[in-house]
């Protein structure tokens, strides 16, 4: 049979047309689509059994409990734990991506001295030389931990100086500590029993205190309600997130909050709206109106509003004696719905501060915010998991990263009820890392071991037989057979919550209205972004949206 050119063309055309009636081209197209989605350089998730473990977030001192999904031995997802008595399952935005932080490009993997990699032996020798030549200071950003006792006992033994860096929430409690003599970390806010909260620029809905504690209260008792059970009055120059969610927003001029507090106190005293005792403030209503930008009538109306539904609690954005004095006048100190001393708190340590010693060197724990500026003319040994940039340290000492260190978590700042938990280590720390406590224990092995201290604390709580242990279901401490079982539960992610104090003696004496009621610089709430570097996905919040301002820290 002779095949003509015409037959060839017809056959080719028929084959071409016919192929579209077969699955071949669609299969090829499908495969090409799949291939082009799976280039070898595109990372693929690791496969492995998925398990869920309880852990605690250690980005800040709140110690929020979280459920961590683990696959192939690595954390692949984080969610809150709804059974936590304080956070109610909430985490801050950073917490949801913090499990990626250990692989951040800024992670420290080696000891650095002025930017050059050196060994741990050299760092240890330098520190030993420093404390043999003069007193050393140790700075702690999360006091009350078992590791803190190691730091504190080292300076006690070697005639050093122990300093605690307070966060803005703790600073807001300082006046009560000074007036009552109770350590600041033994004081807390009883938010749950307050009916009116007057916030002087405190970002209550934006990470203040324990994430989830106030936001949960606000969502249940205030959000969107025209006459809410919990009245939130936000006194703040700008329309912040908290001001947006407040029952009333009172815009005032920057830094005039203390003067407004004094004016409110004056009205409350003069018009006999309160029975509490407080010295009369020297402020005049006219001055306050001029400085705050409010009218005298508006200030008077505000004074009536804050006492309309009591208990009323005033919260400042930092240390503010005038606002603390207003609380004293409102009877909010030592009463339910106000400022309360924590229930029995065996691990509270009075925060020391610089005592004027001329220091030869300073050792900074990894819990201290990166912004902390060490004293000038001292040799600085800074422990950190991530390099926050800048040149503020002579020695950068790599510490364990997120979920790599087992540490105990004493009561978070602002809580009025004592808690205790242990953050388990879900990842093995790198061999190149050490905590400050481990470093000091290598220098002086006679110091108490962290694990022993945690065990002793568990035994102490167990012996007191108070409070409840919160796992999936709360159980009283008395239901545990032994201290070892109690400790085991805490190490598995449970939280111990003490009973609220029924009698709250907190005697504050104030002879005259606190001075300096002039303008005050606002607290630096950029500090909310605690870690020196942020989880890469946090960029969604300031780069791919404008929910937050771009942090000034290095993002590498």
């Amino acid at each position: 049979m002779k095949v003509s050119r015409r037959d060839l063309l017809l056959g080719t055309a028929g084959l071409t047309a016919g192929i579209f009636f077969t699955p071949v081209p669609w299969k090829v197209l499908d495969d090409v689509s799949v291939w082009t989605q799976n280039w070898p350089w595109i990372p693929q998730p690791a496969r492995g059994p998925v398990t869920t473990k309880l852990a605690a977030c250690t980005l800040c001192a709140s110690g929020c409990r979280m459920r961590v999904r683990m696959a192939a031995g690595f954390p692949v997802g984080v969610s809150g734990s709804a059974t936590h008595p304080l956070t109610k399952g909430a985490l801050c935005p950073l917490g949801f991506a913090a499990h990626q932080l250990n692989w951040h490009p800024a992670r420290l993997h080696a000891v650095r001295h002025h930017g050059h990699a050196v060994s741990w032996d050299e760092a240890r020798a330098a520190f030993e030389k420093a404390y043999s030549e003069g007193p050393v200071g140790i700075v702690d950003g999360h006091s009350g931990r078992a590791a803190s006792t190691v730091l504190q006992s080292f300076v006690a033994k070697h005639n050093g100086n122990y300093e605690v860096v307070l966060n803005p929430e703790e600073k807001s409690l300082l006046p009560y500590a000074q007036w009552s003599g109770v350590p600041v970390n033994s004081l807390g806010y009883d938010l749950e029993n307050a009916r009116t909260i007057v916030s002087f620029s405190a970002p209550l809905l934006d990470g203040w205190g324990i994430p989830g504690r106030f936001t949960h209260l606000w969502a249940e008792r205030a959000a969107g309600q025209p006459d809410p059970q919990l009245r939130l009055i936000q006194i703040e120059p700008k329309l912040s997130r908290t001001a947006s969610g407040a029952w009333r927003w009172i815009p005032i001029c920057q830094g005039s909050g203390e003067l407004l507090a004094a004016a409110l106190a004056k009205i409350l005293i003069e018009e006999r709206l309160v029975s509490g005792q407080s010295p009369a403030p020297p402020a005049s209503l006219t001055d306050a109106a001029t400085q705050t930008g409010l009218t005298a009538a508006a200030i008077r109306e505000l004074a009536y509003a804050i006492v309309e539904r009591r208990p009323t609690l005033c919260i400042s954005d930092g240390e503010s004696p005038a606002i603390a004095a207003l609380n004293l006048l409102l009877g909010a100190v030592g009463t339910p719905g106000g400022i309360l001393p924590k229930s029995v708190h065996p691990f509270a340590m009075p925060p020391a501060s610089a005592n004027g010693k001329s220091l030869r060197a300073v050792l900074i724990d990894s819990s201290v915010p990166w912004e902390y500026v060490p004293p000038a003319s001292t040799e600085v040994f800074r422990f950190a998991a991530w390099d926050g940039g800048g040149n503020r340290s002579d020695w950068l000492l790599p510490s364990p990263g997120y979920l790599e260190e087992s540490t105990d978590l004493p009561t978070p700042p602002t809580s009025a009820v004592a808690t205790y938990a242990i953050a388990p280590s879900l990842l093995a720390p790198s061999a190149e890392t050490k905590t400050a406590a481990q470093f000091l224990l290598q220098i002086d092995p006679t110091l108490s071991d962290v694990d022993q201290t945690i065990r002793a604390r568990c035994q102490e709580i167990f012996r007191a037989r108070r409070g409840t242990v919160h796992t999936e279901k709360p159980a009283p401490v008395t239901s545990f057979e032994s201290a070892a079982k109690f400790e085991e539960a805490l190490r598995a992610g449970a939280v111990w919550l003490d009973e609220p104090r029924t009698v709250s003696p907190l005697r504050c004496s104030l002879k005259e209205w606190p001075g300096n009621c002039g303008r005050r610089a606002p607290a630096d709430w950029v500090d909310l972004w605690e870690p020196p570097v942020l989880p890469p996905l946090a960029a969604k919040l300031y780069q791919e949206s404008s929910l937050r301002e771009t942090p000034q820290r290095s993002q590498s």
Partner: protein
Amino acid sequence: MSARYGMVIDLDRCTGCGACMVACAAENNVPPLPPRATDRTGLTPMLVHKVNNGVEGAGRREAFIPIACMHCANETPCVSVCPQQAVEVDKATGIVMQIPQRCLGCRYCMTACPYHARYFNWWDPSWPPGMEKTLNPGVATRMRGVVEKCNLCHARLHTAMEKAAAAGKKEIDMADYVPACVEACPTNAIQFGDLANSEDAASQAAHSPDAFRLLARLGTEPKIYYKSRQAWVRALAERSPNGHPTEAQHV
């Protein structure tokens, strides 16, 4: 199983913290993008917009509106324009699915979406060395050149279905299927459920007098409802989120 999954977002409870955005990205293996990524070139299947009532001074109020794919039930705009059939409405769940393997990257769907809830993947997914160990094994990574959007954490639905099947059940337990943004919300502002089930709390919330849907006049029957007691917030429903900046400022 024939469900109609959707959400009811109580805007009065939203503080604009952004936890939903971060949790969504972590769950769905969204990579950290280069510093030049913006709100339009970034990948934010859930994006929180800030809006205000247009009043200056002490009367000014702001609210936050989280916007994700609305999973339109009627004449779904992105489905009708896709030349590749890369967008499908799952009849069993009502979820509008994006199939990256089929996606050509033409972005017709982005143009058609009235909610600006779709994002083009401009960059190859990459993580700092070692960080790929933290990827969610339930979700595949996607290449650049495809469109991405919220799929109501479909991987979690699969897990819930597997669990139900293992227990010999045909229906999933709704407690097993909670999208990441719902789980992350610290104020429980987002309710998720089967809107076809009148006993479901989300379904009941969707029928409350304060509930509304964005651009409801278009008749696309979105399955994301919003709720607010504030009239000015409800009045925003008929405005585009990227509309006039003084009316609804996208930030």
